[in-house]
């Protein structure tokens, strides 16, 4: 004769109706999640954009195309300067984001967050440029969220001149090997801060 099963083992061996229903629901959730993940790997489709920007508020649908198709071969820099008077501008200052990594970054790397945020914001900004093109140019771009994030960040940097107008520049460099010249991605107008 078999010894009596413990309650948990009993449930594993003889699933009840509730557990069967629960299993079916979870199986459906996983199937849907997996299928959505597959479909959303095609990032430039309308369906993918709709899911990512409208439905997936928690970022649960991953994009697994790490470093592809564009491998990310630039360092991004965020610089700003103030207007001193109508004809003179202050020196460019750089926000300390793209610094060299420390020796311990293989296990402790808090700085990666700033860099990733800036990289994401810039890529989002570049991607949104065509959407904001009008007959008058790109004036509406300054209402886009990535633009506002950058403007908000630079507007809180210390103002050395005491003046209240600030311009920012997004630039990219090719890192250690310097195989390509630094280039400007975006130069903003002067903003009242």
């Amino acid at each position, binding site marked *: 004769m078999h010894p009596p099963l413990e309650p*948990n083992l009993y*449930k*594993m061996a003889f*699933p009840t109706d509730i*557990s069967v229903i*629960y*299993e079916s629901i*979870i199986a459906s*959730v*996983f199937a849907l999640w*997996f299928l959505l*993940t*597959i479909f959303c*790997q095609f990032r430039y489709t309308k369906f993918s954009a709709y899911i990512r920007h409208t439905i997936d*508020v*928690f*970022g*649960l649908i*991953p*994009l*697994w*195309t*790490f*470093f*592809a*198709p*564009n*491998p*990310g*071969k*630039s*360092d*991004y820099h965020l610089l700003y300067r103030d207007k001193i008077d109508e004809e003179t501008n202050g020196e460019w200052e750089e926000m300390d984001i*793209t610094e*060299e*990594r420390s020796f311990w*970054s*293989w*296990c*402790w*790397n*808090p700085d*990666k*967050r*700033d860099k*990733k*945020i800036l990289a*994401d*914001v810039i890529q*989002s900004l570049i991607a949104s440029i065509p959407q904001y093109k009008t007959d008058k140019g790109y004036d509406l771009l300054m209402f886009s*969220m990535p633009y*506002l*994030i950058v403007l*908000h*960040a630079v507007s*809180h940097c210390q103002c050395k001149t005491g003046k209240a107008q600030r311009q920012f520049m997004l630039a990219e460099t*090719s*890192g*250690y*090997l310097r195989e390509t010249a630094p280039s400007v991605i975006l130069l903003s107008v002067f903003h009242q801060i």
Partner: protein
Amino acid sequence: MISIIETNQLILMILSVGLFISTMEYIKKIQIFSSTGLLSWNVMQLRWEKKDQDSFFSPLFKLFNEKGLAVIFGLRCLIILGLLFFPLETTYGWILVGLLGCSLLASSMITFYGSDGSDQMNMLIIITLFLCHFPGIAGSRLATMGLWFIGLQTCLSYTVAGIAKLASAEWRASTAVKDVFSTKTYGSRWAAVLLKKHPGINVFLCWNVMIMETLFPLCLILPFNYALIFIIWGFIFHLLTAIIMGLNSFFWSFMAAYPALFYINHQIQLHLF
């Protein structure tokens, strides 16, 4: 063969190490959430439309500042420490995993920019463990299903990354690794110089990554000795990306999924042979 309970517990333990480090990193960088920071809620709230401001999530919005998020991250660290004492199979362990999932979901609403694949893998695993261990209802079949889901998502991640690289002219031209390693963000000076001096290493690394990533799902069906090649490759790959590229959180979140690959491989081998 490792049991299903041990496999799930091992996944949770490896994940917890990475999550603890990642959370402490966020605490160190908490100023990015301040009113003057890059992810200030003053700006990030613009992502939510007016109708969303009155939604179910709106009470959470009050937490999205430096202090509120410091509390969330602090509590998350305590929950992770609590998991040392309460295994996943216990009711308390399951509740802690649920709370951990809630804290990840909450913070994901403000880290729209800056989060990466490791954060998504962490959330995916935690939610799966939570759903598959509902006390009194979930059984071993559901726990197995959870492991399959984690394993398949892991394989999908590698395959998609591999195919996307194969489709990229820069990867096929074997310049991508050198280009990435030459950035200050994801590279190292010594690695960039080494690859510039020895282009052959660059070609090897590019094609090695493209082929192994694309073929990675084979680790589920190949006999274990051959599957181990992919597992060891993955371990070395993530270790090197942590050392050279500073992607430390990827190491833990993807290593956490590997016990699921082991389990699935053993299960398939048992059924096949």
